[in-house]
């Protein structure tokens, strides 16, 4: 099981939670598990069948794009951070 940080712009889609638990052996499986339980997330995270390039996904402080992307293995208890850009100033 992994913990997933939900950014403020996506909290409406998950009932306001700031962090959720999800299952999966890879980043992709964890996100799939999350999307299955909160289908409204799908449109916000995926574009044209893939993870949108405007959402950064970090595991262990590293961008998963620098590792194996959605195939990156997730250790038990790991924290995944979903991070879209914010423009506010």
């Amino acid at each position, binding site marked *: 099981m992994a913990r997933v940080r939900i*950014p*403020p*712009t*996506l909290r409406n889609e998950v009932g306001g939670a*700031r962090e959720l638990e999800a299952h999966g052996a890879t980043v992709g499986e964890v996100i799939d598990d999350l999307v299955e339980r909160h289908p409204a997330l799908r449109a*916000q995270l995926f*574009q*044209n*069948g*893939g*993870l*949108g*390039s*405007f*959402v*950064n996904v*970090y595991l262990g*402080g*590293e*961008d998963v*794009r*620098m590792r194996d992307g959605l195939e990156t293995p997730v250790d038990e208890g790991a924290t995944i*951070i979903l*991070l*879209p*850009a*914010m*423009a*506010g*100033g």
Partner: protein
Amino acid sequence: MATYRELLARVKEEIDEISTVEAQERLASSDSPLFVDVREPDEWDEGHIPGALYTGRGRLEQRIEGLVPDKSRPLVVYCSGGSRSAFAAKALEDLGYEDVVNLAGGFSDWKRNGFEVTIPRVLSPEQRARYSRHLLIPEVGEDGQQRLLDARVLLIGAGGLGSPASLYLGAAGVGTIGIVDADVVDDSNLQRQVVHSTDRLGEPKVLSAKRTVEALNPDVRVIPYEERLTAENVDRILSEGWDVIVDGADNFPTRYLLNDASVWHDIPVVHGSIFRFEGQVTVFSPGHGPCYRCLFPQPPPPELAPSCAEGGVLGVLPGIIGSIQASEALKLILDRGDSLVGRLLLFDALGTTFDEVSVRRNTECPVCGDHPTITEYVDYVEFCNTPLQIG
């Protein structure tokens, strides 16, 4: 009991001396010794040997090991005539410095020979008082404070982030602060934009900020740019010699425009952004780390990227994030510490947590990568509304 003359003669027998002519030759050589000036502060202020280290005779023993930890480093000690420095040279030898010589004839003889002299720029008594807490910090000190006074920082936005950034940079004595913002002060701004005030409603933000910052510190000159940053004016504004840019913009087109321009103008950007209870801060330094496009290749679709005007923001949040931006800007100017280059700091005020993630330069980045495909300004509004590609 010895008289002063006897004591001086005795000390001079125990130390080595060097003539000013020989010292000048050694100063010009590749393995120049370190010159240590032990005179009074006002004598130093009137001129000293180039590159010399200043530490007054009174605190020499107390301070020298901190200033010169390597006791094998060759030292030439001088005062105005060679007497005070004789005692200083003896004290340094007693402290274990292995290669110490006294400058015979001192700085007076140096000047008589017409050798090069550095006249230090000095802080006024008012500045000494104002910046005393900076002068006490070894990482800032008088040299650092002069750097700050000489520095030029450009702020994009005089809003939530620009407010604390301009106040703290101004208070710190950053000599020139440019502020770019086309808006006027609105009553909905005052919950967080602390550089403005109720009596400024309707006033251009750049002029309101200028009044506040210049009133806080008369050493600071604020250059107002009452305009929105655009592809048309960005080259003009960025080419005015900025050391650091602090990005406190409130929209994606401006942030991508600023990114591209700062890469091409080779100016570091201290980036901050906020939404509700959360903030992000990092430093983009062209050639030394990633740029904004490496971090976020594309902006989110508008429905996923509400502004603070649409989604709200906790009033104090920009105070925290903007202050971190100011701190990073000061460190870049002072060239001290470890900046946030390559690290994105995430702050969550609800959980009171700081997280940090790595940001790496993308060699495929269209702007700062090895083979850039974007080499001139694009239509940033269109770019930020273009349907996204698969990531």
